[in-house]
């Protein structure tokens, strides 16, 4: 039987690999118990933290949770609600009662039409994965300018960095406003050069987000922008 890791060093495991024994360990995300052994259910890196063994997946679909800040695209409009594509398995539903505007019945399209993007928050997710969104809240709005860039959901922590350090550096370097949605969408607004630079930085995150070379690649990219600015 192939063996995963139960040590300090991170190792890549594939579904079905045994990553530890149940004795004294708790099972975290990306793992299940089978015959008193902990089995990885996803392709990813094994992580052991405070007696919990889990797998950080390399590739993972977005699973909405209540309170998530998301960037949605309007996929369908009805008389009194919008269906938003939030990059998950199911569309999110934004009823007009949770929109930031006073919407007359049948006038929903005048506020937001198919293809528009907006910043919303997940209000509720029920056991059948129905997602209700809200746009009532500080900063939640229709995104009428800037660019929305897709990034892998599992690289969001890496893009943000410890205490948002990476994100703050990106904002400072590019002089852009950047909002990271939990659903793997990043909104960037600023001048053209800045947006282009952020787009390239997020491409680096896509390519190197799971590697130790990510930080050095980002630093190299930051220098590139400074040089461009000096010139």
């Amino acid at each position, binding site marked *: 039987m192939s063996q995963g890791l139960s040590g300090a060093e991170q190792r890549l495991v594939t579904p*079905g690999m045994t990553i530890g024994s149940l004795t004294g360990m708790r099972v975290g995300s990306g793992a299940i118990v*089978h015959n008193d052994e902990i089995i990885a259910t996803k392709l990813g890196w094994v992580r052991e933290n405070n007696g919990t063994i889990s797998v950080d997946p390399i590739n993972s679909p977005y699973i909405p949770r209540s309170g998530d800040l998301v960037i949605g695209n309007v996929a369908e409009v009805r008389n009194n609600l919008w269906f938003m594509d939030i990059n998950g*398995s199911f569309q999110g539903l934004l009823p007009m009662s949770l929109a930031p505007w006073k919407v007359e019945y049948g006038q929903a399209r005048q506020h937001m039409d198919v293809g528009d993007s907006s910043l919303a928050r997940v209000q509720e997710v029920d056991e059948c994965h129905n997602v209700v969104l809200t746009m009532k809240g500080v900063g939640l709005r229709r995104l009428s300018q800037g660019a929305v860039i897709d990034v892998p959901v599992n690289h969001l922590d890496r893009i943000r960095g410890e205490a948002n350090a990476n994100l703050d550096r990106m904002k400072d370097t590019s002089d852009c406003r950047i909002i990271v949605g939990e659903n793997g969408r990043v909104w960037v607004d600023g001048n053209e050069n800045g947006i282009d630079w952020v787009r390239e930085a997020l491409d680096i995150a896509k390519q190197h987000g799971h590697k130790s070379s990510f930080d050095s690649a980002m630093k190299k990219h930051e220098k590139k922008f400074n040089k461009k600015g000096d010139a």
Partner: protein
Amino acid sequence: MGGYGDVQLLREDGLRLDGRKVDELRPVSIQAGILPAADGSAMVTHGLNVAVAAVYGPMEAHPRKIQRQDRAVIDVRYNMAPFSTSDRIRPGFNRRSREISKVTAESLESVVLVERYPRAKIRVEIEILAAEAGTRCAGITAASVALADAGIPMRDMIVGVASGKIEDTVVLDLDKAEDNYGQADLPVGILPNTGEIAFLQMDGDLSPEEYDLAMEYNFKAAAEIHEVMVDALKARYEESEN
């Protein structure tokens, strides 16, 4: 002499026509993540077979009548390209592709943690680009790697492998001539870590002893193919690490 007609499938030195031993696999190579548009993908080359699998989802299941309130459904479409064999195959679904799609979907449902995604659908597309006996096995192996690549939670991967009987001799991994003129074919989907069987089909007759030997060959081969699957998934993320 067994089989149909007088086709000789074993050489006098005991080897098969392509020079393999009775318990020897054809060369297998796997590449993960070959299709940028898919959530997960893989290409399996098994002998002269080439199978490409793409996975999309989980997504909302449509039409709604196929939704299950407690789990996801796996929608598999197995298709052989018209140019995959020397005789052109008429494009579109046929009886055989429906059957293989169904058995593949049912076996994948046994390993994917479908209860994590109620009302959802996971779409698996398997396209056979070149066929030389054993395409359902290559297809299911490709689908397993593609599902893992897509980040779909699974309790194990499935390895598709077949044994059979030619000239009253049990052999592993039949090629085209052996499949066409042999006496039996036993394709199996094996969960390499738990040793469970996800699907099993049999064409022809095997005695209990022959069946046991064929399964022994299958399990041995499944372990070999599983290593190639794991290497392919790891290679995608580890090869350019520095």
